């Protein structure tokens, strides 16, 4: 069980200096066990600051973060324990690889947990399977592999902690469409098979709309929208006003509506768009 509860969370960078900057203020939300959440918001909206609070990498300026009802900033032990409960995969995680072999790199986290050899081995193999890392690569140096492979090894390195909550910051940044699809498929099947909470921070609205059960939009350090994709994308104008993209299907639906096609309902996937157009045709025939 890993429920996240955030109460009145605020964070101010460089407090007391001329460079003081409020990154997030007054965040209140609960993420129940097993949800797949998409966090969106433009650069500087506070979403990266927010996720670094969830495993105590950043300490709140004020407010509290609870994981399973325990205040994670209670003391140095709670701050350490939460690292195993909430795993974060940062942007461009391939830049964190450092071991001589792929196997050792994935094992770095479990080793820090002081697990025994057998347990470490089991976790490395399991994590590699989830992240689509072939066991044949285990003895290779991670530095000589392709960009997509490196990224999946880095993700495996965090999955190997068996965190109850897996957070990924822009997991597909810089990859080509095929690489993006593979990583998102891996993440979705990981979510289905383990029942863990997964939080994905992304600029890509199409991916987020397609896979998330819930979407949280940050704007100027606050939660601006929070709901199911169908709720969030039912008012695409709001997202545009925040300087955010909307899914391509939503954008085209907006253009079609402006062009006089009467589309009904919240549209954020291609299938919904096609369906809405066909229903508009039927309505026209009646």
């Amino acid at each position: 069980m890993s429920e996240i509860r955030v109460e009145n969370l605020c964070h101010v960078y460089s407090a007391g200096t001329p460079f003081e900057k409020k990154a997030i203020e007054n965040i209140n939300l609960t993420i129940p066990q097993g949800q797949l959440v998409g966090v969106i918001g433009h650069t500087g909206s506070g979403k990266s600051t927010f996720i670094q609070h969830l495993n105590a990498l950043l300490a709140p300026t004020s407010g509290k973060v609870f994981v399973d009802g325990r205040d994670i900033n209670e003391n140095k032990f709670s701050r350490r324990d939460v690292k195993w409960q909430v795993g974060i995969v940062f942007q461009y995680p391939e830049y964190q690889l450092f071991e001589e072999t792929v196997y050792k790199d994935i094992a770095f986290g479990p080793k820090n947990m002081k697990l025994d050899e057998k347990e470490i081995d089991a976790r490395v193999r399991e994590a590699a399977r989830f992240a689509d890392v072939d066991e044949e690569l285990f003895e290779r140096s991670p530095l000589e592999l392709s960009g997509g492979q490196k990224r999946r090894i880095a993700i495996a390195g965090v999955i190997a902690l068996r965190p109850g909550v897996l957070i990924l910051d822009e997991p597909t940044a810089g990859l080509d469409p095929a690489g993006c699809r593979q990583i998102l498929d891996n993440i979705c099947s990981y979510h289905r098979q383990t029942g863990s909470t997964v939080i994905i921070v992304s600029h890509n609205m199409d991916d987020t709309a397609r896979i998330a059960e819930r979407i949280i939009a940050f704007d100027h350090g606050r939660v601006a929208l929070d709901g199911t994709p169908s709720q969030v994308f039912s008012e695409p104008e709001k997202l545009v006003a925040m300087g955010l993209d909307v899914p391509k299907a939503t954008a085209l639906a907006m253009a079609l509506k402006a062009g006089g096609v009467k589309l009904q309902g919240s549209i954020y996937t291609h299938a919904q768009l096609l369906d809405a157009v066909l229903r508009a045709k039927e309505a026209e025939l009646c």
Partner: protein
Amino acid sequence: MSIISFKQVHYTYPGDELESLCGVDLEIEEGSFVAVLGHNGSGKSTLAKHMNAILVPDSGEVIIDGISSRDEDKTFEIRRRVGMVFQNPDNQLVANVVEDDVAFAPENLGVPSAEIRTRVDEALRQVGMYEYRTHAPHLLSGGQKQRVAIAGVIAMQPKIIVLDEPTAMLDPQGREEVVSTVTRLCREKGMTVVLITHHMEECIGADKLVIMSNGYIHAVGTPREIFSDIEMMAREGLAVPETTKLLYELHNLGYAVPLDALEEDACAAAVAGAVKQ
């Protein structure tokens, strides 16, 4: 008139077994906007590096503005004609101050000081970064850094700008900034632009779209022609715009819609027509 032409270019990276370019033929017309789309490892970056003689073909020839890239004495003649912008904005800015960075190339070319000043100011205005001329690059956003990098190459007054995945590391806003900047340079200043990317949305405004795969040029045509060939794009595993996808499906369901209405309003008009029929 072609300003760049590839003639049966083959290239293999030292130590590799597979060829990265396998007999590429390509003509790029002066003043046109050419987009090159393909997967990682399709050879599109290798193609770009042949355009300013960073790489020289193993066999075949690349002619840039009448100069063969094999002619080693003329390497600088080629590089001053072809400005190159790379993927990582941090790894191509050399100075601590924006305007000093933009001055780097003309300084290397030995341009007189007063002229460098006017070129730098002009280049920064063209990319909309003039107000930031005294800023430190590391404090700018990704999109702003890439625009400084673009200013840095246009200060050389090149005829061609080649951009090798300039948007891969940027957020949507930064991507939009970069693409609209280079589109304007092409349309208003008559510069030849070659944009290498894996985001198909960025190719819609191009005059010519080149699809690369496994070191071959798979298809060349206008974006309309290429994107309306949905089956080919699907075989290549490449995405197509939402507009063509919708029109293709409606077409298959028996609606009389054109397949090549790429722009959103053209598509909207076509769909509205079909619905009201």
